[in-house]
């Protein structure tokens, strides 16, 4: 197992270009089934509004998974991600229309560690909201 990105070829401060991940209601239904999280705030608009939410919201873990995709696609091997943590700072509201929502993820190599590891800090936004904060992955490079 090995990342395709080489430690010697990256520098601290280097940016990883943004990727946009669309989210539709059906994605939340699929995620509910796959993850086992059937909280109705993620698929039932009537319920979501009854508990004070603006509309159905994405599972935080769905958003985190998009950040995970971003890092594993960059690293080239999912096994290279040895530590991944986030704070859920804002909701991804997913309206019931053809457009849905978009999660835009970008990254920067914050620090080069020992043993060919790097810290990648992610920024994830939906519209103008930062939906993840303190989003940080430690990646084992080659």
């Amino acid at each position, binding site marked *: 197992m090995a990342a395709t990105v080489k430690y010697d070829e990256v520098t601290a401060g280097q940016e990883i270009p943004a990727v946009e991940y669309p989210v539709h209601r059906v994605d939340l239904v699929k995620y509910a089934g796959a993850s086992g999280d059937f909280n109705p705030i993620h698929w039932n608009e009537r319920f979501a509004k009854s508990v004070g939410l603006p509309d159905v919201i994405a599972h935080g873990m769905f958003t985190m998974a998009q950040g995970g995709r971003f890092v594993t696609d960059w690293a080239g091997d999912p096994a290279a991600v040895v*530590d991944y943590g986030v704070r859920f700072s804002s909701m991804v509201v997913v309206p019931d229309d053809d457009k849905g929502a978009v999660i835009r993820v970008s990254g920067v190599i914050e620090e080069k560690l020992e043993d060919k590891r790097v810290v990648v800090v992610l920024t994830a936004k939906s519209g103008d909201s930062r939906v993840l904060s303190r989003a940080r992955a430690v990646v084992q490079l080659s």
Partner: protein
Amino acid sequence: MALNRDFVGRAYTAPTPYEVSRVKIKEFAAAIGDTNPIYVDRAAAAEAGHPDVIAPPTFPIVFSLAGAGEAFADPELGLNFAMVVHGEQRFEYQRPIYAGDQLVCTSTITEIRSVGRNEFLTVQSDVTTPEGELVCRTYNVIVERGGAA
């Protein structure tokens, strides 16, 4: 209602090991929209040096709260699940998770605190093989909105 602080320190082990299957990994990868063949194709996984298909980094969420679910449902804790949102999550890996793994998960409630009107509850889950090898450790913070009001 404030959460019952007596639950801090309590540990819950899922009654049976979780068996990681290729089918579940495939379903999970599809649900997050990830088309990386390493999650579904054994040949692609082998080419990358893995013994079988690998699980995406956030996959342990599927099983890591099974034990703690018992605590969350306990009326003595006082958790109103309708008001719960996810606060923080972290996965710390010792090695990747592969199809075929049997994983034992022990979840410990490590902290309950109030922040403003909300209650924050932290669960640490140790995911090990049946032989006791640590595979990954997860940290999960759930927030009960209005719980501390």
